[in-house]
């Protein structure tokens, strides 16, 4: 498969990862170098014996994950851009994935960009945590990404929009300041009814009660899921349609009580 398409097999990728036990201990290197070529800069770059000395320069890198601390020195040195660093201890639900990335524009810290698989397919939106591009990396920047833990063997690249993605500046819900990108992300992650989106994002629960935004949300659901907009239900309409002071309710109640006396 690798030699026909450039995409390594699951077995090959698995073989580049350390034991579950080691993964729990902190950052480690993933060397996806599966073909014997005359090349050893990864060994030269490592200063803690994480990559063993080559007996023959054509050998595949021999990684010692017990010595490796995921320092990332080797990532920008690999001419094949085949080295990544993974930290499963990054947070409760996310892992940190470091990738070499030699394209412009570079993403910026805090950006949410699409993570791509070994085959270039879109996987999930990931957050850019850090962009390192010091002189010593010699124009091979290293990008740190927060990815879902079950995607550390899947995501290997990112798609950075050539024009800065403006969907973060596109507001769907004025009441609660919800952006188009946030709505799309909810739909992509399986929230495909207005009510689900409403309950998570507060869209439709603000002062306008959905008068501004519901059509926009319905349109996005239709376009992403491929459904006919006419088949999509609007959210549940609850009383009241306009904001009202609680005191007025009480006043009215008291007035009613007195009249009934």
């Amino acid at each position: 498969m690798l030699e026909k398409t450039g995409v390594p097999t699951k077995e090959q990728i698995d073989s580049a990862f350390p034991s579950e036990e080691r993964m729990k201990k902190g950052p480690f290197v993933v060397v996806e170098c599966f073909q014997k070529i005359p090349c050893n800069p990864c060994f030269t770059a490592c200063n803690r014996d994480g990559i063993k000395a080559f007996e023959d320069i054509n050998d595949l890198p021999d990684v010692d994950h017990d010595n490796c601390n995921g320092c990332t020195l080797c990532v920008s040195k690999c001419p094949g851009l085949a080295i990544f660093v993974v930290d499963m201890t990054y947070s409760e639900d996310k892992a940190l994935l470091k990738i070499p990335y030699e394209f412009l524009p570079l993403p910026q810290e805090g950006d949410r960009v699409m993570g791509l698989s070994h085959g270039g397919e879109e996987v999930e939106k990931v957050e850019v945590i850090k962009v390192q591009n010091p002189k010593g990396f010699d124009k091979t920047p290293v990008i740190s990404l927060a990815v879902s833990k079950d995607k550390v063997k899947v995501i290997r690249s990112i798609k950075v929009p050539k024009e800065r993605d403006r969907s973060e500046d596109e507001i769907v819900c004025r009441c609660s300041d919800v952006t188009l990108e946030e709505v799309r992300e909810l739909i992509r992650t399986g929230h495909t009814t207005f009510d689900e989106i409403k309950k998570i994002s507060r869209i439709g629960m603000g002062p306008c009660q959905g008068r501004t935004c519901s059509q926009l949300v319905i349109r996005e659901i239709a376009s992403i899921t491929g459904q006919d907009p006419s088949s999509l239900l609007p959210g549940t309409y609850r009383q009241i349609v306009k904001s009202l002071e609680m005191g007025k309710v009480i006043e009215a109640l008291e007035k009613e009580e007195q009249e009934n006396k």
Partner: protein
Amino acid sequence: MKNVELLVIGGGPAGLCAAISAAEAGVDVLLAERDEWLGGQLVKQTHMFFGSEKQHASVRGVDIGKLLVKKVEEYKNVEVMKNATVLGLYEDRVVTIQQDGNYVKVNPKSVIITTGASEKTLVFPNNDLPGVYGAGAVQTLMNVYGVKPGNKVLMVGAGNIGLIVSYQLMQAGVDVEAIVDASPNIGGYLVHASKIRRMGVPILTRHTVKEAIGKEALEAAVIWELDDKWQPIPGSEQKLDVDVMCISVGLTPLSELLWQIGCKMEFVGELGGFVPTRSDKLQTSLDGIFVAGDVAGVEEASSAMVEGSLAGLSASSYLGYKIDVVKELERDYLNQLNDLRSGPVGEKIRQGLAKALISEQAANPGQGS
């Protein structure tokens, strides 16, 4: 007529290293380069090189070029002729050169030929349409002059050059629609293939070009699939909207000068075509005529550099310059070459070299070694 000790023809990686190594031994060197700059094709290699520290691994080719040029320029005993095309190499060892339009004759005691290689091409309908370019040409346009070749590219050939140029096109902001290769497997290093694939570019093995379409320039390309007998499968055609097609189907040694002077030539497919027979220290069948780099057999630039250093050393010895460490250096260069060629990807080169190598005695009858 200009008398020189050593003439190095070609200022690419092999020629630069040959000049440096001979100059270091004390030889007076004349280096003739047809372009206006030194470095050969290194000037357009923006990727990091493979190999080990000794061959500047993990440094970008363009920067290796700068390093070597700087070194050559430091030697007072190296004279560089730029914009100087060697026109002919004659049996009496006279060399004719055209420099800046002028005709110059040179009489060297020894010659190292490092003329490199030229790109092979393909035949299909409309293969001469503007927009159908050699991969090297696209690299020059993009990386030397900073001009995009077009907007959407079909790359023909998944060897190292095809893969690297595809990657460089993407870095320049050009879309690569697909990479096709007639072989069942990707020919280049798989790490190069993977880094392109993960940016979403399909690599289609067992596919080739059926035709180029366009009136004044390329407007589209039709590709089709090949069966396991390399025959196109009718009905498998796909039309791609591209304005550039990049041909990268291998290199062949640029060996005219070797033929002219009468070096023994051998056809070795593994090395890209006709190559000169040579000793392990790179002397051809003719006394004092040495070769290095792609003209001796198409390989990676890392090997070309080591071969250049070795040929420079051999020419120095031939010219009578004795340096103490010659044996040690020779062993080091031979070991480096051996290392670079010893793995599975070097198998083809090893097979090729076995056909081109002749023993020192046979290479140099009457003189021995």
